[in-house]
């Protein structure tokens, strides 16, 4: 490409050159490259999370030439560095994807076998007619539940595609189940997985433990706060199997054996108790550790034990002051003058006169730690020196400690045990709910206008007000019924009802959402895989299926299993996702088990992905900079970040909002022609295709994307999350705006801290400061889970378990994560970014492991186990632990020989305990559910002697 500046522009540039500059030739050339017709706000919302980097997009001759971080953040809090210039290399090269040769420009129809690469370019009208007819056929023959969308967090899909699919009664797989970003151990502990502090709060830490995260790869725009915290006096410790790009900036590197982090954390807990470093006040107030457990049943002593009319979730502690049993408050964490015992054994008389012994959970915990997790015992398990474990424990006890935890622990089979152990370490030392502390994960919400726009039945402010009145009314009713609830708890109750199809403030999450695992279990062949005992927890006394059956038969999951089973797949709509790249089990499972069942596969995408390649109809979507959009809002940034339409979409691409409008109209038109407009979904609700086209845009009121986004902003002001008066015009001026409150979504309310304009956000302050209860069964951070299955697993308390040999008994332990060069697959084919590594995929191996296998650097190997195999070149690095193989994800399968990728060695096992329903462990969108694992798969690697293509 070469720059073509107009002659008038180059004349003007010349004027700027100093007269005495004898090198005006060169200066002119480059000055021509530095002239622009237009700049517009832009960001990159395709599930780059947390992202939210404001950019300016530089346009010349109707083409986006480049982009540059805006650098327009003002400092939030005195004494904390500002967020500028947030962005990364993917964002700085996004423009190069707009005109890349893999960009989709026209609607395509398959003209050969699926995946053959034989296509016919068709018109939008032809494409929409094909899709509409397939939808109508399926509704008629199989019911709307046979139309499936893979849930993804791509914000355009969450609104535009989801609205359409909800309106026809289609089924969506839960997004967190689909993308595997559910931190089950944090959820088990806090009743929510998603406490997230604002990035600037990292600077407040005195001890940063980079543990199950590689922020130098995955948090490029924000990593500076770690380095700056260090310059501010913090110590940084990296706990990881490999000496990764984040570890190089640590003060200490603790090379933990993969899969043994729980043992390390628990030994630190043992040290803290043993050495009297416990934050007792925090522990008795914030956690369930003082609650009394019956020695006979091992269950919490509850009010219904003492009185037939008593509550099952009213628990007790022992008031040391009075020497008597006392009720642990449910509506507040305030101790009310009680001094709960942490240690000792007490006797309680039951109504029948029977006397039972009760002990605080803490006593049980202490005994377990002393028995199994002394630093010496843990050192044998995790490979970290016992005295270094003590060194770590003492530091955690003395300093404001922040565990930089990404989405890695949760992708281990026993990741929940790791997370519970890490949370325990923080709990014993008072390390959450205050600046510089806590764990992190993901969260969203905030941009309530999206949910309001999707829920309202009439356009404009009035429609929005109706939605607000109904949502607020429901909260008020729930609060009136149970005054011990907080708004957060009330919203969760409400959301659980939505999940059961009872309507309401769905937050764009869809009304027919099923846990993705249920869909895979019934329809994608995973049932057989998950029943392989040798890949599962040996503590299971029964086959996997027995547990699933028990869970479903006992109604623990309501009607969700039935809905999932009914969702016999016929049409797959992929929008904002790449199911064949992402899904654990990959093409091995899906092409074999799901694909043959599908009569129609539609992919809406910016670029030719692996899934698009295997679709029947491909619809080209407008990229960022070609349509209006917002980044996924997040407490990490606390800003609504705007992306404007800077140029027209390339080729025939269209924004999703337009695509689904056109599709809705086409469905109405075809349904009328074909005489099928009214039908019932499986719940008996009447649906109407005839009016779909009109209803999708509220009779045209929301047709224009400018109106839609203007409404979304105004309505977010209505819910209180954005300053009143925010609209498209103010957004165009400022590009991003700081949220002023949480609004109504439970994901946002889960932050449980008040939003302040001049203070960085840190979650859970309402728990630690206002004493608001947690959304758990015990209303406290809960470390004791007394469900019978957890007893069977011996996981009622946090512990370490060896990872099961998922994939078979092979020597190399797989670790993974996001690679530096791409967010998932979407930047992998960026022509500039392809030049920033080896230009092809690779896996990392230690020199010793490579040598014993006769593998040289950059040689292609076959990675295999009993589940599957794929080919990938090797990169040899001494930073890798012997016995470890790093299979970073994101590479498109078509970048590997034979189109098998990393997912093809991952059986995608799920943990049986995650089918439990108990107290807070019950489903609502993006929350409690079984989610497959890919870390800790076992493989072997061998040199490929003859390449497949030879």
């Amino acid at each position, binding site marked *: *490409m070469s720059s073509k500046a107009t002659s008038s*522009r180059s004349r003007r540039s010349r004027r*700027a050159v100093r007269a005495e500059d*004898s*090198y005006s030739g*060169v*200066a002119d*050339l*480059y000055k021509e490259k*530095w*002239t*622009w017709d237009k*700049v517009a706000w832009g960001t990159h919302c395709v599930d780059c999370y947390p992202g939210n980097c404001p950019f300016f997009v*530089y346009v010349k001759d109707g083409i986006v030439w*480049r982009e540059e971080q805006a*650098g327009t953040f003002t*400092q939030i809090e005195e004494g904390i*560095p500002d967020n*500028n*210039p947030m*962005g*990364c290399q993917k964002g*700085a090269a996004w423009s190069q994807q707009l005109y890349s040769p*893999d960009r989709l420009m026209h609607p395509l129809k398959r003209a*050969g076998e699926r995946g*053959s*690469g034989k296509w016919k370019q068709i018109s939008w009208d032809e494409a929409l007619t094909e899709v509409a007819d397939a939808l109508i056929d399926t509704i008629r023959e199989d019911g709307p539940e046979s139309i499936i969308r893979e849930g993804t967090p791509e914000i355009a899909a969450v609104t535009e595609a989801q609205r359409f699919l909800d309106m026809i009664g289609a089924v969506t797989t839960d997004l967190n189940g689909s993308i595997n970003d559910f931190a089950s151990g944090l959820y088990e502990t806090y009743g929510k997985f998603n406490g997230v502090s604002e990035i600037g709060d990292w600077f407040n830490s005195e001890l940063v433990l980079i543990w199950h995260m590689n922020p130098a790869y995955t948090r*490029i*725009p*924000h990593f*500076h706060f770690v380095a700056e915290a*260090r*310059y*501010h006096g913090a110590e940084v410790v990296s706990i990881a199997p490999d*000496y990764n*790009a984040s570890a*190089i900036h640590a*003060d*200490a*590197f603790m*090379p933990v054996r993969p899969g043994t982090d729980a043992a390390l954390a628990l030994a630190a807990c043992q040290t803290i108790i043993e050495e009297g470093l416990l934050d007792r006040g925090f522990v008795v107030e914030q956690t369930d550790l003082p609650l009394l457990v019956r020695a006979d049943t091992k269950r919490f002593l509850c009010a219904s034990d003492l009185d037939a009319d008593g509550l099952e979730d009213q628990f007790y502690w022992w008031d040391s002051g009075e020497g008597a049993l006392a009720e642990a408050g449910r509506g507040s964490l305030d101790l009310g003058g009680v001094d709960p015992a942490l240690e000792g054994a007490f006797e309680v008389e039951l109504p029948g006169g029977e006397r039972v012994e009760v002990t605080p959970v803490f006593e049980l915990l202490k005994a377990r730690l002393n028995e199994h997790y002394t630093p010496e015992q843990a050192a044998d398990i995790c490979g970290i*020196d016992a*005295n*270094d474990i003590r*060194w770590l424990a003492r530091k955690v006890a003395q300093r404001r400690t922040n565990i930089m935890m990404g989405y890695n622990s949760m992708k281990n089979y026993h990741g929940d045990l790791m997370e519970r152990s890490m949370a325990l370490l923080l709990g014993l030392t008072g390390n959450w709910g205050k600046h510089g502390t806590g764990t992190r994960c993901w969260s969203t919400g905030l941009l309530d206008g999206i949910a309001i726009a999707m829920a309202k039945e009439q356009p404009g402010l009035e429609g929005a007000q109706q939605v607000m009145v109904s949502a607020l009314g429901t909260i008020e009713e729930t609060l009136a019924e149970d005054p011990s609830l907080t708004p957060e708890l009330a919203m969760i109750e409400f959301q659980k009802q939505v999940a059961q199809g009872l309507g309401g403030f769905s937050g764009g999450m869809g009304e027919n959402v099923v846990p993705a695992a249920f869909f895979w279990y019934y329809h994608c062949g995973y049932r057989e895989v998950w029943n392989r005992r040798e890949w599962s927890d040996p503590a299971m006394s029964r086959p996997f299926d027995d547990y699933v059956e028990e869970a479903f038969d006992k109604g623990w999951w309501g009607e969700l299993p039935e809905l999932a089973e009914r969702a016999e797949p016929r049409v797959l709509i992929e929008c904002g996702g790449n199911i064949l790249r992402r899904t654990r089990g990959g093409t091995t499972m899906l092409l074999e088990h799901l694909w043959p069942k599908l009569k129609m596969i539609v992919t809406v995408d910016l670029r*030719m992905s692996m899934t698009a*390649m295997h679709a029947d109809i491909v619809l080209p979507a407008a990229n960022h900079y070609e349509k209006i959009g917002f980044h996924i809002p997040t407490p990490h940034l606390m800003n609504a970040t705007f992306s404007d339409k800077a140029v027209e979409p390339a080729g025939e691409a269209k924004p999703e909002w337009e695509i689904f409008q056109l599709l809705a109209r086409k469905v109405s038109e075809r349904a009328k022609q074909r005489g099928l407009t009214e039908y019932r979904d499986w719940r008996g609700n009447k649906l109407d295709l005839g009016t779909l086209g009109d209803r999708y845009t509220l009779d045209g009121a929301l047709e224009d994307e400018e109106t839609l986004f203007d409404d979304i902003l105004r309505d977010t002001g209505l819910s209180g999350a954005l300053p009143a008066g925010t609209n498209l015009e103010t957004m165009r001026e400022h590009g991003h705006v700081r949220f002023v409150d949480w609004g109504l979504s439970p994901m946002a309310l889960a932050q449980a801290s008040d939003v302040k304009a001049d203070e960085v956000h840190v979650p859970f302050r309402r728990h630690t400061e206002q004493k608001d209860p947690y959304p758990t069964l015990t209303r406290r951070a809960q470390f004791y889970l007394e469900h019978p299955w957890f007893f069977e697993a011996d996981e009622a308390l946090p512990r370490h378990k060896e990872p099961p040999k998922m994939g078979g008994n092979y020597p190399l332990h797989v670790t993974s994560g996001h690679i530096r060069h791409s967010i998932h697959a979407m930047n992998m*084919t960026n022509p500039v970014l392809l*030049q*920033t590594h*080896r*230009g*092809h995929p690779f896996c990392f191996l230690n020199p010793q492991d490579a040598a014993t296998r006769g593998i040289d650097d*950059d040689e292609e190997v076959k990675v295999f186990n009993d589940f599957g195999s794929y080919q990938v070149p090797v990169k040899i690095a*001494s*930073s890798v632990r012997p016995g470890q193989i790093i299979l970073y994800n994101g590479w498109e399968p078509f*970048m590997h*020989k*034979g*189109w098998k990728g990393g997912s093809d060695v991952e059986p995608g096992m799920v943990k049986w305990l995650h089918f439990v329903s108990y107290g807070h462990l019950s489903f609502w969108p993006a929350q409690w559910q079984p989610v497959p694992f890919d870390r800790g798969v076992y493989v072997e690697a061998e040199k490929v002697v003859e390449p497949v293509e030879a």
Partner: protein
Amino acid sequence: MNAPEKAKLEHQLAMVFDLNKCIGCQTCSVACKVLWTRDEGMEHQWWATVNTQPGKGTPKNWEEMGGGERGGAPVAGHLPTKEEFGGGWEYDFDRLFYGGKGSAETLRPTKGAPEWGPNWDEDQGAGEYPNSYYFYLPRICNHCTNPVCMEACPRGVMHKRPEDGIVLRDEDRCRGYRFCMEACPYKKIYYNHVRNIGQQCIFCLPRIEQGVAPACARQCPSRLVFVGFLDDKSGPIHKLVNEWKVALPLHPEYGTSPNVFYVPPLSPHRLKPDGSMDTSAPRIPIEYLETLFGPRVGATLDKLKAELDGVRNGGSSEMLDTLIAYQWQSLFGPFTEDPAELAKAESANGGE
């Protein structure tokens, strides 16, 4: 030799890269690539590069290629080849997606398996696990005070601007003799085979002239690239380089007096053979760092550590506060103009 008379240097622009904040993300290199080097003949050109050290870098083994100055005259080193730079790979997306061959095709560079590139040995490093070690080293043209590239050019097409010390080439007069590429010991000059000229970093001249910081500096998300005049006593560059002496030139022994400086990398404690931490020893061998940053690097790291110990014990440090850069703009000295505002004003003026 037809080198131009050296005009008296009024001021010298300089950069400081703080390696303790660099995460090797390549935003700087990509920013430069997208802005300046996308034309035909520039495919392999990356005026800003970031490599993992220890490593062979780009061009491959550049530190062994010679060049620089000896006895007041430029020394001709090895002329780096296109293969040694590597990269510039092309891919045939059409064949893959629309060729009808299905999974028989793979997305790989069309002209055979790549053997080197601008970031080929990323994250490979050195040492033996668990005492592995590496760090990232961003590099641009050093706009040397003693530019041997300029001196080596028989046509005199290079020029060091007296007002700011930027080394510029007159591309119209360059005939592609490549003596400059042999002489430059940092191997930061690329050959454009289409135009038959040499090309290198222009210190973002059009931006500098508008008061905007260079793209590689302004776009670095880790906020670690300081820009300014070396003689600006109030600016951070002067303090870091001359006053506190915590920023060092790369390979000072090459003799060109480079104007890009580096805060050298700290590293985590080593582990003893029994696996326990040895808090007295950093893992990057000091001897290795001395080969890059000269004999002062040990003292520099000691100074940095002393400052860190100070703040950890409740003290304060102007040096560390400077490196924190509470205000992002404090990195850029006089170059704090917002390029978008300038562009908006320009387009509002109708481009005339």
